[in-house]
């Protein structure tokens, strides 16, 4: 009786490994090309050398400390973007004047390359945490505003009338009816924002320095410490992957009551 699930698990693990064969092939090809001396190790160190480098980096705290700094900047910027974006998006949905004022600015700002504003942010906020947090917030606020606005405008008028008829005040209406109803859309906006937050934090660090994974990576590149560059690259890849899947799982949990909960979007 116990054997069956074990065997089923083993089979699904096997299937998973088989499905990932291109990644395994890639790893073997990488190792082989580097080991056989087709390229100089300063350009492409073997995968094993990269993993070997990760051990002393981890022990010295040189992987986790920069990662924590980067994550802090990305999370703080995203949190700021969510607070500002939800407020602006809901105001736009509830007040015509705000919509008239903000909508054209968003239409102009959304497609703009936010990274171009980095020199201005460095001028205003210096080269430490604040610049990166501000740039992350500036990048992520646009999808959050659009998602909050879109979500708030989809609330059925019947629900608004019903709440009003029961004597709900305008503020409570926004907080208890409009905001929950716009949560599914909002979560999609946040999901779009999460990778933006990460990439913006990493990129701003690469440009402006001041630690974090991006800053350390560029330093390693300047000293031609190629295995370290690859080690940071793998950490960034893993971070992006885990966080992306984490947000998806969170979305499924938070929106259990919503019919879209199982929906997968790209």
């Amino acid at each position, binding site marked *: 009786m116990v054997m069956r699930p074990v065997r089923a698990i083993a089979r699904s693990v096997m299937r998973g490994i088989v*499905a*990932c064969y291109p990644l395994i092939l890639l790893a073997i090809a990488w190792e082989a090309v580097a080991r056989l001396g087709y390229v100089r190790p300063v350009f492409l160190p073997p995968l094993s050398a990269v993993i070997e480098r990760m051990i002393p980096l981890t022990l010295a705290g040189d992987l986790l400390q920069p990662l924590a700094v980067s994550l802090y900047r990305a999370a703080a910027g995203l949190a700021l973007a969510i607070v500002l974006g939800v407020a602006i998006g809901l105001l736009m949905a509830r007040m015509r004047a705000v919509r008239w004022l903000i909508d054209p600015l968003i239409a102009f700002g959304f*497609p703009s390359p936010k990274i171009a504003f980095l*020199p201005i942010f460095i001028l205003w906020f210096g080269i430490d945490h604040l610049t990166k947090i501000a740039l992350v917030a500036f990048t992520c606020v646009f999808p959050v505003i659009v998602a909050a606005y879109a979500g708030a405008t989809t609330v059925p008028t019947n629900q608004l009338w019903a709440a009003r008829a029961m004597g709900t005040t305008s503020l409570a209406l926004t907080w208890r009816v409009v905001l929950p109803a716009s949560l599914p859309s909002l979560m999609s906006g946040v999901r779009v924002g999460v990778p933006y937050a990460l990439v913006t934090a990493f990129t701003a660090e690469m440009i402006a320095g001041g630690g974090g994974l991006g800053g350390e990576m*560029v330093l390693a590149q300047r000293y031609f410490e190629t295995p370290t560059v690859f080690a940071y690259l793998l950490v960034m890849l893993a971070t992006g992957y885990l966080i992306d899947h984490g947000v998806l799982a969170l979305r499924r949990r938070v929106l259990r009551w919503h019919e879209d909960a199982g929906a997968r979007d790209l």
Partner: protein
Amino acid sequence: MSAGALFAARALLSRLLPFALFLAAWQALATSGLIAANFLPSVRAVAGALIDLGASPSFYADLGITLWRSLGGLMLGAVIGIPLGAGMAVSRGVDGLFGPLVKATYSLPKTALIPLLLLWLGVGSATSMVAVMFSTLLPFVVYTYHGIAGVPQILVWSARAMGTAQRRLLWKVLLPASLQAILTGLRIALGFSFVIAIAAEMIAANTGVGKLMFIYGESGAYDYMFAAVTAIVALAFVADRITVSISNRLLRWDDIENRLG
């Protein structure tokens, strides 16, 4: 003037007015003395710098280089990404080979490749372009894949029943039916291309607008720095609008709700 044109002009004016208010607030703040002139150059100073840059050939050279790097990389991304996405949608073998690679690298912050490319290709256009190529590849692959995979089976069956050959099926049915998805991918890729090209120039380059901004910033010419930022943001906006209008022209035959905003 007809009533329709009058209405359109009024609508446009109503959309432009918030920008005028924004600029007026900026100018008022900059000249109020609350903020040091170094921190926030006035709108007048930035406009003067912008006019000055507009008359300088070397600024166009920098702008041209940035544009070449972003659009050149975008073209490479399209040339590789669209066939790859189409191949993954129609062939299980291709999907099995590239699908896991796409999934594994989908959430990699693409600028992370720039330090590596600097090691491989050195400082210059090649690094920027290849970085742009990698970052625009995925939107092309993903949107082409989903576009073709989402073509209603009934269209394929109908074409087959009428004796359409496999190759003609791709060109006459699958690609046109997924055009809207591919163009959406193009618009996203275009946005990425500017970000990556500018970021690569800011990390390490000798030319381009990204580099120019930092030169102005380091020499304290903040009005010129703001002007350069304004120029590249305006350029990205125009490129986005051109892409949207070309897309809508190409999708004239399609349902109106499928057009881009």
